[in-house]
């Protein structure tokens, strides 16, 4: 049996992780099939408002399962479309951030010396500095350097936000990868590969990376939920992504809960928050499950 299959078997035993994975799977199915699963368009009012009977702020009912928002749009449909954007941002930035982190961590671990010291100092600082401030300062630097403009795009574009989160999301993984490299590079199978004449790149890609896949995958999942929450936070301050007209994001919907608590439009608060919490909860549980599944220390005693 391959290690992968053993990990799968262990993962499946982690009840919460399995349930979370199933919930996430359902969500992904919903957002992939958005045109079918959503009842209305993302910006379509449930029915056109009229001066006599404004259709905004309907509580959940037959025509709008989860109620409507300030201009009468169906919250259920918007949640599906919003989740799509948020998961895209979360996944993309976590994925690229992890790649960057792996690269930096591998270089630091393999090269050692002053490169290692420098990279790790930078990592420490990024980690220790207040998250939002670093994000905002990076954001202003990115939007004020003219030659970066064609690369990063408009400060409110999804691409910009993803790049921002990538620039901000590599440290944890870099540390992790460096640790893994330092531990693994003393192992004889790595030395064996070197004796075979394998290059550093090959060693990293063929041996170090697969053998660190467990912890890195775990870090990646946590990054996904972290980024989804970060997107919501940015949105709260008005610096969030603007997913183009005709789109929304979970962060926007949760931010929209702001004005809805006092008037008692509870559905506008409860449902987006529940979805946000559910997504990040599920992702975290999956991460937890992956950690248990891939942790070699737990081999055999579970």
């Amino acid at each position: 049996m391959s290690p992968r299959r053993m990990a799968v078997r262990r993962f499946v035993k982690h009840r919460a992780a399995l349930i979370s994975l199933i919930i996430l799977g359902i969500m992904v199915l919903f957002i992939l099939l958005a045109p079918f699963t959503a009842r209305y368009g993302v910006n379509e009012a449930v029915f056109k408002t009229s001066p006599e009977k404004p259709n905004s702020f309907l509580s959940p009912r037959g025509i709008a399962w989860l109620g409507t928002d300030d201009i009468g749009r169906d919250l259920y449909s918007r949640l599906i479309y919003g989740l799509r954007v948020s998961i895209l941002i979360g996944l993309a930035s976590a994925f690229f951030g992890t790649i960057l982190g792996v690269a930096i961590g591998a270089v630091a671990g393999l090269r050692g010396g002053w490169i290692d010291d420098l990279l790790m100092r930078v990592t420490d600082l990024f980690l220790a500095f207040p998250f939002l401030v670093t994000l905002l300062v990076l954001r202003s630097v990115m939007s004020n350097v003219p030659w970066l403009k064609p690369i990063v795009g408009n400060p409110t574009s999804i691409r910009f936000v993803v790049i921002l989160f990538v620039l901000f999301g590599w440290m944890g993984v870099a540390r992790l990868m460096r640790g893994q490299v330092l531990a693994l590079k003393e192992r004889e199978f790595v030395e064996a590969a070197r004796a075979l004449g394998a290059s550093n790149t090959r060693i990293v890609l063929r041996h170090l990376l697969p053998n660190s896949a467990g912890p890195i995958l775990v870090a990646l999942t946590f990054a996904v939920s972290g980024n989804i929450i970060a997107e919501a936070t940015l949105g709260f301050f008005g610096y969030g992504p603007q997913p183009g007209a005709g789109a929304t994001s979970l962060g926007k919907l949760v931010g929209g809960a702001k004005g809805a608590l006092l008037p008692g439009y509870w559905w506008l608060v409860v449902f987006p928050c529940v979805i946000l919490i559910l997504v990040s909860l599920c992702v975290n549980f999956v991460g937890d499950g992956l950690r248990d599944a891939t942790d070699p220390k737990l081999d055999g005693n579970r």
Partner: protein
Amino acid sequence: MFRFVMRRLMWALPMTLIITFVVYVALRVGTDPLASYLRVNQRASEKKIQQYIETNGLYEGFGGYVRGYLQWLQGFVTFDWPRSIKGSREVWPEFRDAMFNTLRLGLTATFLGILIGLSFGIFVALKPGGLRDATVSTSSFVAISTPPYVSALLLQLLFAVYWSKWFGQSLLPTSGVYPPGHRGFDLVLMIKHMILPVTVVVIQVVAVYARYMRASLLEVLNSEYMRTARSKGISERRVLVRHALRNALIPIVTVAAIDIGAILGGLIITERIFSYPGLGDFFLGAYDNGDFPQMMPWMFFFTLVVIAFNLLADVLYAVLDPRIRLG
């Protein structure tokens, strides 16, 4: 010990300089103080502009940045801080007030949060895998995933708005450091105003540290030498207190010391919702205006905090871990 601290302090100085220089360049690029100045002083004459560039060291190019940084640093350490761009206000008095407000709020919340979080962590680590464990770890996931502005609003609603609807008077104030119009110092009022914002931060900190502590303690409890200790017949309580806790706390203290900078900075959201005039609000205001003279001391302060607490982490680590002897 003393030598060790001194050596680290000597390291801290160049670190501070390098980091603040990088921050200086980033802010110069990011905020473009000259453009901000021109935006605010639209009809400034060529001479005035030139004068502004010179008094504030806004030279261009890498050499210019170095020169400008040194000029800024000199003014900074002699408390000759440049005035804010908007309204040309003195930065220090406002910064100082905001700093004390934030430190008061942040340190209280950090202390309480870590304390409670660790207790929770110990509580669940003693009986892992059970219902208790599941409840606490699920709650901590929920707490981590709940945006602070949502929990803040809920607290405001409950303790102020609804409370005053139900009982005619609110239990806890929703905003500020003191009630409007209050003058002078009043500890009770100050504490009353801190309860809700502190709670919001504490919820997050507790969630994080409960998980840390759980993991750390479990690792220690499962380790070989703990098994040995147990097998020697040492009582469970003694094992826990004398060995496990001490060892489990070592990594956490280190993490906590490093975390404090991040927690203080993370107050931004909380401060904004509770209209609490702290450093977070100070930064956001400065950021919105692209106000370099306000942002730079802020960044300098946090660089110092981060470096100082990193140093503290090292020292604590050395003090706590008996395996480490400082020459």
